């Protein structure tokens, strides 16, 4: 599913996209790499939850200023509040949003 908007972004807008496939890889990525312009974060990730990744990001000196857009199908009020409390800039419920709206929101931060 991530491939859908990654393809569109890379192809149509020339955005360079790095992607990881689980929460632990995301943690590793933050530790080993320089900050990026925007992080798109899912919550239900294998091995480590998106909430934990977000928390680590916000505790990391280099990465804490990077905007984070949560892109998830967890859409309960408490999930959204928790994401925002942890410092997410936006919260997109995937199933309720069409792909062009997602791209539009991403571009706002680039």
């Amino acid at each position, binding site marked *: *599913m991530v491939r*859908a*908007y990654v*393809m*569109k972004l890379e*192809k149509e807008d020339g955005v360079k996209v790095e992607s990881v496939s689980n929460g632990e890889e995301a943690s590793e990525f933050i530790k080993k790499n320089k900050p990026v312009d925007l992080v798109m974060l899912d919550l*239900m990730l294998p091995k480590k939850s998106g909430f934990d990744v977000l928390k680590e990001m916000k505790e990391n000196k280099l990465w804490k200023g990077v905007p984070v857009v949560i892109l*998830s*199908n*967890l*859409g*309960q*009020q*408490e*999930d959204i509040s928790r994401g925002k409390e942890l410092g997410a800039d936006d919260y997109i419920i*995937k*199933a*309720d949003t*069409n*792909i*062009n709206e*997602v791209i539009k929101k991403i571009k706002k931060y680039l």
Partner: protein
Amino acid sequence: MPNRMPNYMTPDISKLDQLKIAHNEELMWQTTRGRIIERILKQKVFEKTIKLDQKLKYLLQTESAMLNILEDTKEVEQNLGRERDRIKTIVSSMGEGLIVVDKNYQTVLINKMAEKILEMPENELIGKDIRKITSLLKGDQKVAQNDLPLEKMFKTGEIISVGIDDDFYYFLPSGKKFPVAIIDAPLKNGDEIVGGIIVFRDITVEKSLDKMKSGFVSIASHQLRTPLTSIRWFTEMLLSEDAGKLKKNQKEFIDQIYDSTLKLIELINTLLVLSRVEAGKIEIKPVKIDLIKFSKDIVKELNYLIKEKQLKIEIKASKKIISVKLDSTILRQAIANLINNSIRYTDKKGKISIFIEQKGGEIIYSVADNGIGVPKNQQDKIFDKFFRADNARLKEPSGSGIGLTLVKYLVELWKGKIWFESPAFVEKTSAGKKEGRGTTFYFTIPVV
């Protein structure tokens, strides 16, 4: 009194004679006295005998009366004993903890389950102030004296119950904390409250099941929506021809897939809201809403559907601005669902009217259409979950039957009422009676 003493000193008579005479006098006197005494005694004995006889009779009567009473008492006692044993058996075999307190909060009766739940033997519990045995917490906070259910019960004389959603916990001296459901009932003597009955149970299992249930709904909806998002987005990419130009019928097929995907997503979202309302887990954030503007915005969002069917739609209000204080998401869902239904079940070129009217302490909001209506014999089931009227099923085979259930739940969240009218015959035309069509849904919102 005659001279009873013999005169021993008389000189004319010999000593022996004197003694004889004296003896005879003595005898005579004694005999006379004896007779008198005898008579008196006899009389007394006779009188006493009568009295004794009377007393005896009285005693016998008393005895038999007492025996009767004793017999009765014994029977009552036996009955009471049986009753007491029966109550004791019921109380001790109850699955709930039971404590009876007097009006000073002192415990006077405790059942086995209460001992088990509170982890203390009866002798440590009986005669104690119940407020000192356990402390009641709401979440992590100690419940204030005035908010204690028992206190409220003593004040109001009403039965007070605390359930799973109240989030009450017992905190024991041992440090153990567990969620409880409690019912406090007054014990009355006439109008006076003389004590209370506390029935309680440990609801740890129920609580965790409840948590699991809402967790399950949340995860299930996530897992269902994830693949659907994938279908949705790739279909959108296909439709916007990211993967190359589409032939006419290819586009048509993909359009179908797309529509169904959106419907399925909507259905899952509705089910999710429904289960959360049922579980009492909807967060309500009331804000001030201008109902007319709010309705116009919703109509605007649905405009593409209205245009498609060339429907006429109007909004009428009894005042220029009618404002309410409600959660906007909840209100939007309710109104949009009703308008959506009207659009769905009204034929092309039909008409939909929205009336907003303030009447006293409430606002009556109605959505009227001249659509297919609700058959008389199915009107009582219209708000049932998954129910669909026969004519609705024919017209829109893909409906789910949960829209109106949701609207009802939502309206009840703000303590409003909901009803509808779908008369069988409403119009009399020059050509005679015309079958009445159309449905009007009404709901109320309290004015703040």
